[in-house]
């Protein structure tokens, strides 16, 4: 195990999620330590997205418990979990299409900026929400399209926008679902840099097919297959583990 195993920020204990007779997530145990970069890999249909849904609260578990920061959050809704520090990027970029890019970031950072108190005056709105949102857009390379309606952004831009939105919420745990999918080479490069630069007070749970990104970033890699946890360990162990090769080989067929 890694050096991070001592203080878990997130613990999933034997979580289960069923869709009819299909067990999408089957008694999976997962620990993400404070500051850890934890990657979740596995073939399509392994249950990675479902597991992130369970942790973020978008779907409820059919069994097991989830703890975050020492507190049982199994019964909390997604909004509540977001407010206590779980941020999320979705597999298909989920932005608000009728809002402009900067408005998307503003709405995403709303609670971080003090909610309705943060917008009581125009000056406060600008200082607490609008300016930080612009800074974040700049960081992900979207400053030029800040006033463009999100519906008119390209797939890659929407992906970057959602990253800015997730960061605006200042999460303690960032759930990333295939952030590199559909990005151009330049965009992937920028994404890798952005993730590498994240401060260590943000823990990351990353689902990604690009194994170069995974191995460059992760402290721990967990492999899922058919809803079950195959193995978990440091990148070097995982790279050569026969169980992992089998899982992927089977999926490719």
């Amino acid at each position, binding site marked *: 195990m890694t050096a991070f195993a001592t203080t878990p920020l997130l613990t999933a204990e034997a979580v289960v999620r069923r869709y009819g007779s299909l067990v999408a997530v089957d008694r999976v145990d997962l620990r993400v330590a404070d500051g850890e970069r934890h990657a979740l890999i596995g073939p399509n249909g392994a249950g990675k997205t479902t597991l992130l849904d369970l942790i973020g609260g978008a779907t409820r578990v059919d069994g097991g418990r989830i703890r975050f920061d020492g507190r049982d959050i199994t019964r909390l809704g997604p909004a509540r979990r977001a407010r206590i520090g779980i941020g999320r990027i979705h*597999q298909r970029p989920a932005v608000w299409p009728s809002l402009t890019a900067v408005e998307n970031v503003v709405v995403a950072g709303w609670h971080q900026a003090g909610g309705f108190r943060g917008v009581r005056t125009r000056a406060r709105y600008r200082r607490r929400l609008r300016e930080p949102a612009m800074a974040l857009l700049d960081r992900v390379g979207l400053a030029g399209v800040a006033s463009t309606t999100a519906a008119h952004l390209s797939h890659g831009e929407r992906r970057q926008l959602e990253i800015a939105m997730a960061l605006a919420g200042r999460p303690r745990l960032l759930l990333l679902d295939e952030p590199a999918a559909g990005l151009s080479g330049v965009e992937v490069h920028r994404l890798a840099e952005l993730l590498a630069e994240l401060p260590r007070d943000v823990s990351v749970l990353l689902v990604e097919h690009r194994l170069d990104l995974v191995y460059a970033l992760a402290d721990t890699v967990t492999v899922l297959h058919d809803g079950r946890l195959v193995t978990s360990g440091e990148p070097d162990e995982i790279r050569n583990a026969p169980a992992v090769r089998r899982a992927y080989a089977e999926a490719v067929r």
Partner: protein
Amino acid sequence: MTPAARRWLVRAGGVGLLLVAIALPWSVDAYTTSLFARTLVLGLVGVSVALLTGLAGLPTLGQTGPYAAGAYASALVAMHVSSVGVVQVLTGAAAGALFALLTVPLVVYARGVVVLMITLAIGELTVTAAGRWTSVTGGTDGLAGIPAIQPVWGMAPLASDRARYLYTLVVVGVVIAAMVMLLRTPAGLLLRASRDDEARTRASGHRVTGYLAVTFVGAGAVAGIAGSLLITAQQYVSPADFGFDVSALLLLGVVIGGAASIGGAIVGTALVIAVRDWLSGLLPGYAPLLLGGLFVLTAYLFPRGVAGFSTELANLVRSRSRGRTGPGDRPGTGIQGRPSRGEPVGAAPVSSGETR
């Protein structure tokens, strides 16, 4: 057409309409003036329907509920307490908001067609109650002989249809201006985000249900104010003012006008009432047919309503000139559903072919 040009056009159109509305009572007879006053009143109810249907994503057939509550409360106040307009408007707002507050738990957890059915039931129950509760509402005979209104303390009662029309116009204008200003604040962003993608909005920590509840109560207050204006405009009220046909006409008008647009809601409602009241005079018995035809025509020609017309035109021009079509999702126009409502976030992409 650039967004700036479009905004300018909308503004110019708005100012033009307002000037026509002000000049109107000097160019038509008293009866027509009173018809216009009632059209304005229904237009304001239409605005509250648009707020819920287009902006909050809660399609409603039940705004006749708070509308009726505001009307009866204002009528009782006018007859027994005060003939001052400010008092009556505030009474109507409070009654409408209270009505919405009592019914809000039935509505905010439902979505889509279910909301339509629940609000339909609420509206129907309200009419039935108004017809039965004779001691308060006068039953199906209604309440007649409501004294004329004096807008503020010390002013003379408004004796003419023209004066009552202008009073209605002022109140409707103030309410709409207040609403537009509120929706332009960052709070309006939250509502639009919730409509665009509810699950995503929750994932950013927002209490979407709470926002919807507040909007529902606010829309109730607006409908309640319209109720008080109904009392001013026709000095008579009966359950027939709140029947299913009224709810259906309102929703139709709002959809025709472009559900998420306040100006569109008024224009759409006025159009629908014009078809009902005037064209049906020319072709008696054909009003439902004409309305149905109008609806199909709008849905076919402008899926985003009259208010979406200029956007559609702009998109057409853009796609012709640059070979690029945009979805045209400008804020504040057209009906937009809630695509991800009820689905777990991230579940949909499994079949979207984006995974490798």
